[in-house]
């Protein structure tokens, strides 16, 4: 629901105080950093209020005004705290330029219902800010990991050189290490051999069982469900120890099959949950219709049912894959040298010799997954366009 709210320019009595309030808020930090809180608050408020007035009333040209402001802030930041200051200054310059015109032009109301009261509008944006903060919280570790992976030192530490943006503080040696070190390459290969097979197993069995479970009459449904979900709810250390003792006895400990079976078992609950959830909305008359028209059960499954529950199957498969790809406790017990996966190698790295190679690996994986997720999203949009649907 995109509300078409007519927008109009606002009065200086609105946008100047708001911009000044933001300025005062950010001024607090700069002020305390430079030793005087009050000066920071007042300076921030006055400076930004002035900027707002000048940009709107004197320069008037939005583009030129914003560039000018950004440049000014960048220079100011550089004067205060060299390169880091320059970056922060540039950011604030850009932000205030955006803020001033966003408020002045009234664009902030464009996408929200026209009937909202000012306090509701205020709440709307506060809420958005809170959510933004939580998203930042979610990706913080990744933001930390990425720069650290270029560390020239062998520790997880932001060195003074790095903070000064001195090129000497950065290096690609941990990436080189990952690509040239046999231990890492073997671990990567093992992970890539184990995770897909485990995923395939859990997806195949899991999907079948989920279809069975969503039939109208299943005896002992609750008990069966509980058993199938159990790998997710049993604490990992108990599963690991149990599998370890048991697999040793039947000769599966330390074998490829053992690790695959263990990981498949761990991934099953995710497949069951996602696929049964998709099947809740599945219209059974479709299969009947297919059968009526002479399709045999196998054809019905692959041509009718499967395409419809595919999103659930894929997302369950993704969860199962990640479970195997990021699992360290069980593989540590059930596996042996021949099945050393990436997480295991990372675990040894953290225990025996801290090296940012771990972070380099993590960065590479995040990079791959961003590409993957983006491609999936683009494909989805493309197929929507092809089918003539409006992007919802």
């Amino acid at each position: 629901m995109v509300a078409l709210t007519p927008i109009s320019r606002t009065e200086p009595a609105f946008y100047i105080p708001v911009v000044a309030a933001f300025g005062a808020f950010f001024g607090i930090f700069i002020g305390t950093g430079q030793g005087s809180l009050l000066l920071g608050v007042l300076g921030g408020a006055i400076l930004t209020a002035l900027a707002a007035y000048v940009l709107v009333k004197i320069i008037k040209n939005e583009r030129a005004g914003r560039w000018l402001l950004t440049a000014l802030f960048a220079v100011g930041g550089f004067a205060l705290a060299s390169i880091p200051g320059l970056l922060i200054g540039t950011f604030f310059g850009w932000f205030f330029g955006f803020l001033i015109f966003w408020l002045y032009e009234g664009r902030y109301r464009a996408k929200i219902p026209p009937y909202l009261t000012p306090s509701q509008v205020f709440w709307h944006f506060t809420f958005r800010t809170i959510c933004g903060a939580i998203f930042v919280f979610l990706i913080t570790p990744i933001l930390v990991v990425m720069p650290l992976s270029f560390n020239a030192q062998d520790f997880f530490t932001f060195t003074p050189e790095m903070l000064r943006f001195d090129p000497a503080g950065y290096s690609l040696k941990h990436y080189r290490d990952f690509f040239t070190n046999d231990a890492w390459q073997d671990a990567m290969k093992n992970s890539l051999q184990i995770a897909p097979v485990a995923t395939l197993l859990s997806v195949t069995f899991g999907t079948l069982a989920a279809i069975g479970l969503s039939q109208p009459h299943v005896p002992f449904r609750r008990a069966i469900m509980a058993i199938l979900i159990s790998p997710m709810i049993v604490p990992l250390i108990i599963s690991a120890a149990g599998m370890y003792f048991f697999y040793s006895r039947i000769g599966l400990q330390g074998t490829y099959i053992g690790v695959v079976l263990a990981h498949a078992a761990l991934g099953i609950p995710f497949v069951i949950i996602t696929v049964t959830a998709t099947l809740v909305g599945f219209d059974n008359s479709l299969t009947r219709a297919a059968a009526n028209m002479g399709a045999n059960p196998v054809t019905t499954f692959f041509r009718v049912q499967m395409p419809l529950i595919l999103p659930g199957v894929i997302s369950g498969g993704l969860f199962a894959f990640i479970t195997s790809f990021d699992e360290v406790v069980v593989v540590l017990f059930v596996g042996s040298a021949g099945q050393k996966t990436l997480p295991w190698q990372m675990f040894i790295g953290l225990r025996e010799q801290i090296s940012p190679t771990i972070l380099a690996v993590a960065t590479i994986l995040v990079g791959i997954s961003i590409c993957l997720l983006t491609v999936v999203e683009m494909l989805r949009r493309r197929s929507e366009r092809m089918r003539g649907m409006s992007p919802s």
Partner: protein
Amino acid sequence: MNLTKTLMTSTALTLAAGMSFADGHMANELTIISWGGAYSNSQQKAYHAPYSAETGVKIINDESSAEAVSKLRAMNEAGNVTWDLVDVEAADAIRLCDEGLAIEIDADEMLAAGADGSSASDDFGDSLISDCFIPQIVFSTTVGYRTDMVGDTPPTSICAIFDTDAYPGKRALNKRPIGNVEWALLCDGVAKDEIYDVLATPEGQERALAKLDTIKSDVIWWSAGADTPQLLADGEIVMGSTYNGRLFSLIAEQNQPVGMLWDAQMLDFDGWIIPKGLPEDRLARVMDYVKFATDTQRLADQAAYISYGPARASSAPLVGKHAELGIDMAPHMPTDPANAQNVFVTNYEFWADYRDDMDAKFQAWLVK
């Protein structure tokens, strides 16, 4: 158990087909378990590579030493021992020997005599702390400190750990009683040779924990060997206990502003054990390797890659220079006379008895 057995049998049958290629013990392979990191690397260069070059035996490294005790017991229970040789700490070797999971060794018969002509058992001397243990290295747990955080008076005594007035800041200690309680008693005024007698009494244990209690809020407890070096590099702690090899690499290889103490270093041994239950041919292969890898020259070679002392007396004169940095390694050995003025040798017999009890008390103290 009947259900379990039935299930087990059926599983075994179902998987029999897949098992055929899982049994990967080739005729000319050795599966050797070690700790990983720089230590495994030193073994690779000093023992494995020359041995493989000489005999053509392929060596498979498994970095599971941290889980070795439990894994060996499970393998033994299952009657399916897949490891050939395991690198463990002395305390674990005793445990494994007690559990009947390692074979007993006759040092003079199975190991090479010293290069100076001494018999193997004399050459290894005190390091043969268990019937099953084949020593490789002497290492010590000692204290490193940030040189830029201790002012003008760097610590010289182990008791600096307990002196929060002179050295304010966090300190890192191992998250287990072994080592810590001895240091605590030592710094509480107990004479060095009476420490284990005192520790054997409940009052002595209370006393050790009470001493540790004085610094409890300043301690970061580590459990992985890589923790303390990282904390020191971060400047997160002013001092912390760790293995001497880690401190050497921090100081000499990474050039961090860190100094180290040799005072009251806790000497400990690390070495091989051979799992019980190996078939004859594999056992013969392992014995051949062990004889090679623990001779005088090999043990001295290892010291070129990591600053742990060779467990043989005859190897000490042969210790040379660091393989990359080219510095003399002898002064960095825990056994070097200059460093070994005040050493503390762990009483393994005591800990075999008191480990369970003391650990329960220590953990209970820790979480309170």
